[in-house]
Every structure is written in structure tokens, then in C-alpha cells.
């Protein structure tokens, strides 16, 4: 009788998995959407403060991270092309580059945050309480948004590492690569969000 159960579970529908992933991406977009809504309300109320506070951030680091993410997005998209073309070795290499890029991103973020922490600027710190209202909100938003984003980077990285293992094992191959596709979709989502966070947080004039 147990073949019944396995039958139900083995039902494979790549389009369904992909649709599922897209729906999940929708929820992620709206999750960040809520934050961006909060951001826009406060930015409207404290435009000058937001501008001043944003000067504290280094546009260079932000720009480097943007470039890093864009490149990683391309490499993971290429990984799919590679797997479709049955080029396993290239696929593996492209995934590793992507993961490496993610690490670079996190590394940068670590320094950026660390720098702020050194100056006593972190959520809940005494310095934060002393700031002007708009500055306080700006930095709260900054930590909250980039923190949540970094969390997504980490999740995406884990997903990609799983992809790597699966490709290596051969359970992702040219005729069954929907898992990789979904991992890549997730990774693009992370990129997509950063595309908005970067101008919103770093480039305020």
C-alpha cells in the first residue's frame, strides 16, 4: 500500500514549484513593502534630518555592494544557462562565485555596521536616544532595513550552497533544475530589494 503515499509525494510539477516560489517572493516584496511605507512616511516628515543622517553612510561602500549584488545576480542567472547547456562544471563555478559575492557583501556590511557600533550608534544605544528625532528614525530604519536584508542574504546563501551540493550530486541537472531556478529567483529578490534600498538609504539629497 505504501506505494500510494510515495506516489502522491513524488508527483512532480516544475511549473507548480516555480509558481510557488514566485508567490513566496510576492510575500517577501510586501514584507519589505511595509518597511518602505514606514520609510516614506518618516522621510516625508523629516526630509532635512534624513538628508543629514544619510551623509553618515559611505556611498562608496553602498555602491560597491550594489555592484557586487548585481554581478552576483548575473552569475546566478548564468548558472541556469549553464545547467541548461549541460555544463555542470561551469554551473558549479558560477554558483561558487555567487556565494563568494554574497560573502563580500556581508563582509562590507559587517564593516559598515561595525563602524557605526564603534561610534556607539546601534539600536537601543544611549547615543541613539540623544539624537534628533529624524536622525533617530533614520538610523533605526537603516539598521532595520539593512539588517532584514542581510538576513535574507544569509538565507539566500544557504539556499545556493544547497544548490551547489545538489548540482554536484547530480540531483540538479539539465532536465531537472527547478530547485536551482528557485534558489536563483530568491537570490534575485535579494538583489531587487537592494536596488531600492540603496537609493533610499544612501542617496538622499
Amino acid at each position, binding site marked *: 500500500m505504501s506505494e500510494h503515499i510515495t506516489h502522491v509525494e513524488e508527483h512532480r510539477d516544475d*511549473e507548480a514549484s516555480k509558481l510557488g516560489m*514566485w508567490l513566496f517572493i510576492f510575500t517577501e516584496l510586501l514584507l519589505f*513593502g511595509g518597511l518602505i511605507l514606514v520609510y516614506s*512616511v518618516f522621510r516625508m516628515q523629516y526630509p532635512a534630518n534624513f538628508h543629514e543622517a544619510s551623509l553618515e553612510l559611505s556611498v562608496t561602500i553602498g555602491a560597491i555592494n550594489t555592484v557586487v549584488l548585481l554581478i552576483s545576480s548575473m552569475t546566478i*542567472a*548564468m548558472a*541556469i544557462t549553464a545547467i541548461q547547456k549541460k555544463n555542470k562544471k561551469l554551473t558549479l563555478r558560477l554558483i561558487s562565485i555567487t556565494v563568494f559575492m554574497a560573502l563580500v557583501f556581508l563582509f562590507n556590511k559587517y564593516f559598515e555596521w561595525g563602524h557605526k557600533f564603534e561610534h556607539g550608534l546601534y539600536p537601543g544605544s544611549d547615543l541613539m536616544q540623544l539624537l534628533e528625532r529624524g536622525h533617530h528614525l533614520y538610523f533605526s530604519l537603516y539598521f532595520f532595513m539593512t539588517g532584514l536584508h542581510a538576513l535574507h542574504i544569509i538565507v539566500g546563501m544557504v539556499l545556493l550552497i544547497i544548490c551547489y551540493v545538489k548540482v554536484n550530486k547530480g540531483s540538479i541537472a539539465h532536465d531537472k533544475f527547478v530547485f536551482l531556478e528557485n534558489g536563483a529567483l530568491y537570490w*534575485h529578490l535579494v538583489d531587487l530589494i537592494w536596488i531600492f534600498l540603496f537609493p533610499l538609504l544612501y542617496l538622499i539629497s
Partner: protein
Amino acid sequence: MDNHGSHITEYKVLVRVLFVLLLCTFLTISVTGFNLGAFTVTIALLIAGFKSYMVLSYFMHLKYESLLLRILVSMVFVLFIIIVLITFIDYSFR
């Protein structure tokens, strides 16, 4: 709809898209360098919108997906924009 006939995006297309995206990033940074008043945000967001369009269509293969999915994705963005606009009916007239 089935996967075997699915579209393969060529490497060079992806490279070109990346190039456009990098260009846009550079553009945003330089635009915000000038002070164009309220327009700066608008322009920065427009560029960001274009960038996300590129990522969605090419990197995320949306261009080659079913019409349904494309409609759904745009629906989500439209919904979000509407929600923001409605919230601002409150905040802009306070």
C-alpha cells in the same frame, strides 16, 4: 508551459543586462549628486524601477514566462503602490 522547451538565456544577453544595470547605478549616484529638489527622489526611484524591470525580465526570466505570471507580478507592484498612495492621502493632508 512545460519545462523542456523552456527558454535559454544566452550568456551575452546576461552580460549586456549587467552592463545596463551598472550604468544605471552610476547614473543614480551622479543624479543625486546634483540638487534637483524633489525631482531627485523621483528620478532615483524611476531608475530603480527600470533596474528592477531589467532584473525581473531577464535575470528572473519573466520575459519568457506565461502571461498570467507577468500579470500577477505587476499586480503585486501595483497593489503596493496603491497602498502607499492611499496612506499618503492621510499623511499629505494632515
